[in-house]
């Protein structure tokens, strides 16, 4: 598990470990960010979210799990359990961890079908893409692509 146990409530996980819907979590996060109006608060909050990312062991930081397109290094791996996808990740920088944390908040414990079909518009909604320069956006795109790829594989749909 990648989330501290006491943070279930705020991450949308209920007792059954079934998360809220992807759109709902995004709504919630967007609302959280709405209170922050300068870049310092936004980044502080983002990096703070990143603290929840528990990290991977050295052995799990394989080349296979490394996301291309990140200037900082980001590793991400997933596991399918009861038709729900769980994400495990790490990074060597605070900001990338914050971005992974956002993604994990939204997608952790969701079904592969939902992951593939629900839109992910959180970055635009929280003004992150305006602030997110292309390289960082690239990293984000890489992480999202990886999560969706794993979801597709999980669905048995190997048309990559």
């Amino acid at each position, binding site marked *: 598990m990648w989330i501290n146990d006491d943070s279930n409530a705020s991450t949308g996980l209920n007792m059954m470990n079934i998360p809220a819907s992807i759109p709902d979590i995004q709504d919630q996060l967007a609302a959280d960010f709405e209170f922050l109006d300068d870049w310092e608060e936004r980044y502080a909050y983002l990096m703070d979210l990143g603290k929840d990312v528990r990290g991977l062991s050295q052995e799990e930081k394989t080349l296979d799990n490394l996301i291309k397109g990140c*200037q*900082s290094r980001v590793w991400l791996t997933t596991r399918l359990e009861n038709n729900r996808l769980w994400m495990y990740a790490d990074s060597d920088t605070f900001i*990338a961890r914050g971005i992974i944390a956002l993604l994990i908040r939204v997608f952790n414990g969701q079904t592969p079908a939902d992951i593939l079909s629900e839109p992910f518009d959180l970055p635009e909604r929280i003004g992150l893409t305006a602030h997110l320069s292309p390289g960082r956006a690239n990293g984000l795109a890489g992480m999202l692509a990886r999560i969706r790829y794993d979801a597709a594989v999980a669905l048995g749909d190997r048309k990559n």
Partner: protein
Amino acid sequence: MSSNWSAKTGSEGLTRPDWDAIRLEFPALHQSVNGCPLAYFDHAATSQKPRRVINAMTHYYQSDNANVHRGVHNLSQRATTVYEAARTKTARFLGAADSSEIIFTSGTTASINLVAQSWGNAHLKPGDEVLVTGLEHHANLVPWQMACTRTGARLKIVPVNERGEVSTEAVSEMLTSGTRMFAFCWISNALGTINPAQEWVEMARKRGITTLIDAAQVVAHKPINLQEIGCDFLCFSAHKMMGPTGTGVLYGIKSVLETLDPVFGGGDMIDEVSYERSTWADLPYRLEAGTPNISGVIGLSAAIDFLESIGWASILERESELLSYALEKLRNIPRIRFIGEPKLRSGVISFIADGVHPYDLGTLLDEQGIALRTGHHCAQPLMRHFGISGTCRVSLALYNNHEEIDRLDLAIRSALRLITNVDK
């Protein structure tokens, strides 16, 4: 070359260029980034361009554009004239003995590779040694690795000390009877270290060793006098000296260049071509296959004019003043550690903040409109030497000013505060 910039009188009664006016010449500097005025500290990656350079290229495309060297018509002749005048100007700028010693290339990387291939194939054999320093940019390391792999020669590296310097004693020791080539950067792009180029070349020449200087980081910052330096080859890029991308120079002593076979074949570099064989044209054309980057060379020529219109004495004074100011400011920021403390330093400061990834710091500076470079600066082995994966690098040019450095100082402090809060 006397300054044509409206001058201010300094406190010592000396006239000084009007640096604010000069700064206004660089359109890209006057914009805001993430809601803040841009402060550009990434000159060592590529310089900003003065209006004069941009205009020279625009003018070329709007009025003289034609292919060079083979045309009888007026436009082609005009293009040839400006292209060849740029060669003459570059030769003079560097103090070359002859303009045919100036080969236009697509950049430092192409220049060094040309030598590593052509000179390397002709002169390197198994057992020979090529010497470079531990400070090199990949552009002056990888081509020699490739040349050594091809020819069986060995690549040796003069070690870097803890201050980020290469000692002349170490160089002297490693310039052995087996050394054929000593290729080194005059100024390190990663640390700012200035190497004693003239002394090293002299040492090498006395032992009959060919020398190549990677001057990529020199051209916008120091005057070059090839007759004093005495190196066999010298390489640089226009884009790091206020000129355009895609343009570089390979200087070589004529008698040495004459021993080089062309690496690329094509138009302009031949004398006679038959289906069976071809003979090569004279220098410099022999080493310039195909249509050259005509507008790029014209931009380079305008960049030289620009630098000379300010004058080296003023540039040197200005840059050393800005450097001292920045060093002092950054040195006083808690958690900041300089990587490299060379005694002779050009306008580059590499640093890390303890426990902070350069990427995080760089990102939070960018949010404040501060552009600097983070990463390995194309010098991975050097980073490994310092046990780090990268640094933040501030690099300065004549167009920077004190206010920007003040903002840099404050911006780093805010960024570190933010990170420290998270880090708790």
